[in-house]
Structure formats: structure tokens, C-alpha cells
């Protein structure tokens, strides 16, 4: 890199720093949710030891790396608050590493690339998947997998004998954190086949083979899994799991296909959410909030831009462009397929990271193309690109608002739900002990410190 290129890269990092610091500040005060975290920690405390946590393949939530990481911290901490502080620091570090890893990969080295990176990074951190994965459970598995996905892509980009084994290891750590890690293995296998410099075809075969064995192993124990595990979104409404079993249980495959398509749709168009077309519904009813229009329009714009670039890359792109396209499609399809039982925004975590990489290339190409346009067309292209950038930057601010709303929501949960849970779990001393230990952080007044913006801003930025 020349000094000038280094300056553009440093400038890009500097430009994203306020967002990262603000996000870290906001995440630091989000209370752990009483509804999720206490149960997870109780589960952790009650598992008899690491060995049992590692070998329960028949369980629907077989995640040995996730439970192992939680366990090491849990056992090593002097107290529950210490363990929680460590989880929190790790979560925030993972969250911040994702945009930084993205910038390291794209390495903007000119003004045009810095502008393209700003847009692409906004499509990553402003996406519903990224927001949904800001939830601290106490560690967010999807955020870890997203980071691994980006690292693997970067490692595969240059030759080196050690890169293959590291990619192999990281891929299986991702799978060990959550099943969605299979999206990473799909991308690894494909880019290895199509000549990624950092990974041989043989390593690609090993990843594909071991992943297939893992899937087969898990499916062997799938007979006990419920047909629908959680509420299923369908069209404009959500169907409770029990109703879904009754209505579709005998032949659930069309609903499985719908769920998969809904997951992909959420990555590409921010719609539907959890399988429910709530923005479309609001538009039809004439009740759409400004943020809903911004979300839909900016996603359609970014996806159109990405599709335009993808068409060119498929036709006449270089090897790297084609590999990026294949990797994106692989993670998109695999993430979507893994959400077959029910879909949630968070399932698209890895896919949006690769989507953002595609948007970066697309924006770069669009800027280069615009340079050569006659004035009228240049103005039209410039207007579209600026509107797209404005929409996604608003969504970036919306991500911060989302974290603040989550903090308030969790805080409120701690205010009104403790009494009921004390009664419901009266015969579960471990649950009560953990809940008591978490209560102080759940009601920390800093959570609801007033923000700089008026509440009406939420209508523009998005509401939970």
C-alpha cells in the first residue's frame, strides 16, 4: 500500500470509530434478559460437566463450542457478576470485530473505495440480522460465526500452507457454536473448489465431507425433534407452534420451503421478519412508518445494485469476484435452508456479511461506471447512490436505537417479571440464585439514561 492508500484506509477506520464506540457504550448497559439469560446460565450450571455438554448430539441444541466457551468462563470466574462481565466484554469485542474485520478485508485505498466501504458497511450493521445478533445470550453464537465467516474469507484470499488447516479449524469451531456454522463450511468448500489461493481443493473436500458426516449424525437424532419448534410466520400473521403442528404437521415441507425463502428474503429485502410480511402489510394498510419505507427501499436498492454487479461478475468477472459471488450464494442458501423449521432475522448473520462484501464491489463498480456517464445519467445515478447511502446510514443509527430499545425492554422485564418468576420457579434454587445475582444489573439505572434524540426519532429509525 502506498502512503495515500494507507491514509484512506486509516480514514475509513476513523470514520467508523464513532459508531463502534457508541455501539460499545450502548451494549455495555444492556441488561441480560431475564427471559433468556437466566435459563441459559441455569442450563450451564446444571450440566454435569464439559464432557456431557460436548456429547449430546441428539439434543436439538447441540453446540459444544458454545457451551464449552461459556463453561470455561463460568468455572474460571470468582463470582456470577465476574462471569457476566467477562461474557459482556467478549460479546462486545466480537460485535466490534465484525465491522473491523469487514474493513480489513475491503481495505479502502481511495476516495471512491472509502465511499463504497461506508455504504457496504452500513448494509452490514444496519441489517435486521446484525441487529438481531446484538442480543447477548450471554454470548451470541451467530455473531461469532459471522466473524469466523469473514476471517475464513480473508484467510482464503492469499496463499500459505498454514491457511488451510486454520480455515478447517475455524469452520468447525463455527459449526460447534451453532448449526448455522454450516453456512461457512458451504462457502469454504465452494471457494476451495473454485481455486481460492489460501485453501486447497483437498482441504475443501475434507470440510465438505466432515460437514456431511456432521449433518448425517445430527439427523440421526432428529426423530425426536418437534415438527415446529417455535411460532411460524406465514404471510401477514404468526402461527403458534402448536397450531402449526395441527395445521401443517402431516406434510410440513411447503412451510419449511416458505421459511427458507423467508430467511433469504430477510437478507435481501429486510422483509419478511420472522416469516411475517409486516412492512408489506403496513404499506398495504397505509400505516407504514417512515422507518419501514426506509428499510424496504434501501434494501431493494442495495440488492438491485448487488444483482447488477453480480450479473457482470458472473459474465465477465475475475476469479475473485466469481468466488465472492459463489460464497455469498452458498451462505445465503445454507443459512436459509437451516432456518427451515422457523425463521428469525438472526439466521442471516453470516449471509449479510457476504452480502455487504458484494455491495462493496457493486458500489465500487457503480462509482467507476458513473464517472464515464453523460451528465444527465450521471445525475440520476448520483441521486440514487446518495439516497441509498442516506437510507443505510439512517439504518445504522437505527441499530443504535435498537440496542437502546432492547436495554429498556430488558430493564422493564426485570421490573415486572421477577415476582412471577420467583413464584413459578420456587422449586428451582439454581434458577433463583442466578436470577438474584443478575437482578442488580437488570435494574441498573444507567440503562434508561436519557439519550440525545427525541422519541419521535424512533419512528424514523425503527422500533422494536
Amino acid at each position, binding site marked *: 500500500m502506498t502512503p495515500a492508500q494507507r491514509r484512506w484506509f486509516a480514514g475509513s477506520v476513523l*470514520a467508523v470509530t*464513532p*459508531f463502534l*464506540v*457508541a455501539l460499545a*457504550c*450502548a451494549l455495555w448497559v444492556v441488561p441480560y434478559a431475564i427471559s433468556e439469560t437466566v435459563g441459559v446460565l441455569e442450563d450451564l450450571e446444571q450440566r454435569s460437566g464439559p464432557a456431557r455438554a460436548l456429547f449430546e448430539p441428539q439434543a436439538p441444541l447441540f453446540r459444544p463450542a458454545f457451551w464449552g466457551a461459556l463453561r470455561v468462563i463460568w468455572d474460571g470466574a470468582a463470582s456470577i457478576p465476574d462471569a457476566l462481565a467477562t461474557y459482556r466484554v467478549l460479546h462486545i469485542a466480537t460485535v466490534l470485530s465484525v465491522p473491523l474485520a469487514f474493513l480489513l478485508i475491503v481495505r479502502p485505498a481511495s*476516495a*471512491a473505495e*472509502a*465511499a463504497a466501504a*461506508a*455504504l457496504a458497511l*452500513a448494509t452490514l450493521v444496519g441489517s435486521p440480522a446484525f441487529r438481531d445478533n446484538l442480543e447477548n445470550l450471554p454470548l451470541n453464537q451467530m455473531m461469532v460465526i459471522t466473524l469466523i465467516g469473514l476471517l475464513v474469507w480473508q484467510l482464503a484470499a492469499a496463499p500459505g500452507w498454514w491457511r488451510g488447516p486454520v480455515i478447517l479449524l475455524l469452520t468447525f469451531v463455527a459449526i460447534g457454536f451453532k448449526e448455522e456454522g454450516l453456512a461457512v463450511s458451504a462457502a469454504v468448500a465452494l471457494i476451495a473448489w473454485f481455486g481460492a489461493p489460501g485453501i486447497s481443493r483437498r482441504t475443501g473436500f475434507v470440510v465438505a465431507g466432515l460437514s456431511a458426516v456432521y449433518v448425517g449424525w445430527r439427523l440421526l437424532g432428529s426423530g425426536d425433534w418437534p415438527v415446529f419448534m417455535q411460532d411460524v410466520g406465514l404471510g401477514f400473521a404468526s402461527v403458534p407452534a402448536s397450531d402449526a403442528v395441527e395445521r401443517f404437521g402431516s406434510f410440513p415441507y411447503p412451510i419449511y420451503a416458505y421459511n427458507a425463502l423467508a430467511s433469504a428474503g430477510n437478507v435481501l429485502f429486510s422483509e419478511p421478519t420472522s416469516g411475517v410480511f409486516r412492512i408489506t402489510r403496513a404499506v398495504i394498510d397505509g400505516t407504514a412508518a417512515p422507518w419501514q419505507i426506509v428499510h424496504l427501499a434501501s434494501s431493494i436498492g442495495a440488492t438491485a445494485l448487488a444483482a447488477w454487479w453480480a450479473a457482470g461478475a458472473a459474465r465477465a468477472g475475475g476469479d475473485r469476484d466469481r468466488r465472492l459471488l459463489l460464497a455469498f450464494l452458498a451462505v445465503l442458501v445454507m443459512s436459509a435452508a437451516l432456518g427451515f423449521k422457523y425463521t428469525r432475522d438472526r439466521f442471516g448473520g453470516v449471509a449479510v456479511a457476504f452480502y455487504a462484501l458484494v455491495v462493496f464491489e457493486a458500489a465500487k463498480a457503480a*462509482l467507476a461506471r*458513473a*464517472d*464515464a456517464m453523460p*451528465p*444527465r445519467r*450521471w*445525475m440520476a445515478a*448520483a441521486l440514487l*447512490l*446518495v439516497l441509498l*447511502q*442516506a437510507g443505510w*446510514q*439512517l439504518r*445504522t*443509527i437505527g441499530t*443504535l436505537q435498537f440496542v437502546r430499545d432492547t436495554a*429498556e425492554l430488558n*430493564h*422493564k422485564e426485570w*421490573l*415486572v*417479571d*421477577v*415476582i*412471577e418468576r420467583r413464584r413459578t420457579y420456587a422449586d428451582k434454587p439454581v434458577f433463583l440464585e442466578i436470577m438474584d445475582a443478575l437482578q442488580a444489573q437488570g*435494574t441498573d*439505572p444507567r440503562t*434508561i*439514561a*436519557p*439519550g*440525545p*434524540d427525541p422519541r419521535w426519532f424512533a419512528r424514523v429509525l425503527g422500533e422494536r
Partner: protein
Amino acid sequence: MTRLLPDSHAARARLLVALLALPALGSAIFFTRFVVNRVLPEPPRPEPTAAALLDVVSGSDVLRAWVLVNAGVDTNAPHPFSNRSLTNDEEVLLTPLMLAAARGDENMVRMLLTYAPGADAAHRRMASCLALSRGDGDLAALILSGAPPDTPCPAGLDTLGQLRQITARLRSGQP
């Protein structure tokens, strides 16, 4: 319009990049402001008072009510209160728990029972009766933590009637 554009492609490219940087700059300013607001000391909040607590309880604002409870507002002392919907602008005496019960605000009742649990038995019974006057037996039971009231609630009185009776008893110093 197009005549305003720079002639050279390079100048137009620079203009486009600058235009694209503007929204990103705007969001960066917003985030900086957010961080600065977090770092700066909070402006002093108004003095926490029983009247302020009753006000936020009547508005169902659990978060703000908790802030006042946490700040040490006495939740056991009855305080004058009036509004149009509940008391028809008539002044009554009540505690936050009674007000939440009279409004059927279960979330507020739960918060007060958890974080301001010192209400004496007589006040809890009054609050429970107010919930019953709305036909909300579950809320009444929650307030009494499942135990039946030691004395029966006044029969034949609606919520406002009960509030008047409670106010009269409190003013006369009866438990």
C-alpha cells in the same frame, strides 16, 4: 441543471464521493453526540416526590416509576391525587400501589410489589379491594400474595366509591 456540473470526469467523481460522504458524516456526528452524552454527567433530575410518583403511576410509566422508587420516594404514605378518568377530578388519598390497583395496571403492581414491598397489610388490603372493584380477582390475589383478605371488601361500591371511603378512613386516622 446539468450546466452546474463540473466538466471533467475526475471532478464529477470527486463530487459524487463528497456527496456520498455527507450522510456517513451525518451519522458519525450523531454517534459522537451519543457518546458525548453518555460521558457527560446527567443533568440533575427533578426532586423525587410522592406527587411525581403518583403522576407516573397514573401514566403507566413503569420505568420512570421505578426511577422514583429507587430514588427513595416513600411509597407507603398516602398522598392526595386527582384526575378526570379515575376520580372525576375529586381529590382522594392513596398510595402508588392503590393507584396502580385501581387502574388495573398489573405491570405497575408487580414492580411496586417487587421493589417497594414495604406496604403495610392494611394498605395492601385496600389496594386489593380496589382491584376487586374492577372485577380483577387475579390482580387482587397477586397484591395479597394469594392470601385471602382478613376483612371483606366493602360491598356495593365501585372504584371511586371505594376511593372515597379509603380517603375518609385515612383522613380520620383509621387503619
